[in-house]
């Protein structure tokens, strides 16, 4: 198999060149949610956040999850990102049922197979752009030189090579989100989960960032799930999933 970071031929458990840990190649679909339910609180005060949703996402696919506030979008994203264990249902990442995994293994799956984008960018303020992008790689044990090379390449591909040495405070909102996109792509994930990535950006910048995210993900054969209120993103998506009151109302291509 090819190492998703340095692109050298490699075999598990680690790439011999850059030291990235390698997992067995996962087939399609990347994500499978089967009849997933979740409640917050208990007894009469319990609030249903997800009411038995079923969803499947393939590699290279861009899926938009839309719907009103309180409809369960963020809960769904947390479940997909292995950050919340649902009350019922099955979650599979790369065909593997993650319901019984220990927290350590869930963290490992997040690092190896998933990438994240946040509304507030969540870049580490003490680090430069290139260092921020290299963070997941370094924690995965990738050699420093290989990590920085990979981070530089990703920033270059997103048109941010000239901002590699700048810290978040010196970047615009769009630049921050593109650095965050590079970070999400750094490990060569199979799926990127984005939570309102354009909410803090003006429409032109939001659109540009989203297009770049979709293009970069497709180029890396990664799926993208974007939770958003921004209907202008519909045309970059392969599919739009409408989530309301914890249920999927419609799924349209």
């Amino acid at each position, binding site marked *: 198999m090819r190492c998703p970071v340095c692109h050298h031929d490699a075999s598990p458990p680690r790439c011999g060149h850059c030291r990235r840990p390698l997992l067995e190649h996962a087939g399609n679909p990347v994500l499978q949610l089967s009849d997933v339910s979740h409640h917050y609180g208990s007894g009469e005060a319990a609030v249903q956040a997800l009411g038995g949703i079923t969803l499947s996402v393939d590699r290279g696919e861009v899926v938009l999850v839309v719907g009103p506030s309180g409809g369960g979008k963020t809960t769904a994203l947390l479940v997909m990102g292995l950050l919340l264990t649902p009350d019922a249902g099955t979650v599979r990442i790369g065909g593997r049922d993650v319901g019984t995994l220990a927290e*350590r293994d869930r963290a490992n799956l997040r690092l190896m197979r998933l990438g*994240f984008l946040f509304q507030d960018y969540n870049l*580490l303020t003490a*680090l430069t752009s290139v260092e921020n992008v290299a963070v997941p790689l370094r924690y995965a044990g990738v050699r420093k030189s290989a990590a920085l090379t990979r981070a530089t390449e990703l920033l270059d591909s997103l048109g941010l090579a000239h901002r590699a040495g700048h810290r978040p405070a010196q970047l615009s909102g769009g630049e921050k989100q593109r650095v965050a996109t590079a970070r999400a792509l750094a490990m060569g994930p199979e799926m990127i989960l984005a939570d309102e990535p354009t909410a803090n950006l003006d429409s032109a910048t939001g659109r540009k960032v989203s297009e770049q995210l979709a293009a970069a993900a497709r180029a890396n054969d990664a799926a993208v799930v974007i939770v958003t209120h921004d209907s202008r993103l519909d045309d970059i998506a392969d599919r739009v999933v409408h989530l309301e009151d914890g249920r999927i109302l419609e799924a349209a291509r």
Partner: protein
Amino acid sequence: MIAVKNLLAEKTRLASAVFGVTLGVLLVLIMAGIFVGTTRQVTTYIDNSRNAVWVMQPGVSQMFKAVSWLPADTEGELRALPEVDSADPILGLPSDFVYNGTHTAYFVLGYDTATGVGGPWSLAEGRNVDQPGEVVLDRILAAKNKIGVGDTVQLVDEDFTVVGLSNQTAAATNYYTFISLPDAVRLLRAGDRVSYFLVQPRPGHSPEQLAAAITSEIPGADALTSQTFAENSRDIIVKMIGRPLKTMIAIAALVGIALVGLTMWALTAEQIKDFGVLRALGVRSDQLWRTVLTQGAVIAILGYLVGSALAYAAQTLVGDRLGDVSIAITPLMLVVVGLGTAVMAALGSLLPARRVGRIDPAIAFHR
């Protein structure tokens, strides 16, 4: 990488964190340094007796909490021993120095001004005693009472003229004052008695052999090497001031742990969102533990280095200036405090690391 970069990014935060550890290290080193310095200093008079064997009344094993009386004619018996090269009497008693209404505990010492044995070994000012009615005062005692060479002071119930000021003759709550032996005999109502004899062995005899010979050959007298006599005297002072000082050192260590703990807690609190983001990205709890502990280690090392440097600076600055209080920082003390700082940092980082290890990664999605 993140541990160090996060620290360096906020210089003020880093400085205040290092300051917290520095304060803890400084507290412990200074307290321990005063303890060691003071206990070393209390025996400078014995240490400067040129390795003499001390002869004293049986039952007396230290200088500070016992009074030794020996017949003055013991000197002849001592000189008759084949192992003895010289034997010089000294007569000393603690007393109360009164000057301008101020009372200070001090030690009056009479010595043979012809040989100088038992007299001051270093003068800051003036000269040694060579006439009746003259005194050499400890310079710290003189300074505290604003006394100078040429002034008249009262010792017990007689007036003396200050002719010199001595160095290294002050220790915690004790100051030495030197007068001639005949003056001391009269002043202290000693009659034909002295306190100690300082005896030097003939070549070929060790102080230990000489001490053993005196103890077995001279009835009514014991002998100890100056090293043993100093150790015994130091022990009695350690017993007197050791407990409160050790308690203060322990309190300083606890304050140090608390400072490191609070510092690390505050530092972690400021970075909690970053740690949540890292957890969401897939960084494991144990990796974040390492990050927090690394930050603790960096802060502890910097704080230790700065604290040690400041403690050394304080030691140099204080030097002999205060006279009765000195700071002695030993290599062993630095090693122990270094290890203690590591423990302080580990303990202080434990709760923050535990907190970070338990962060809900979903915090990264909170707006």
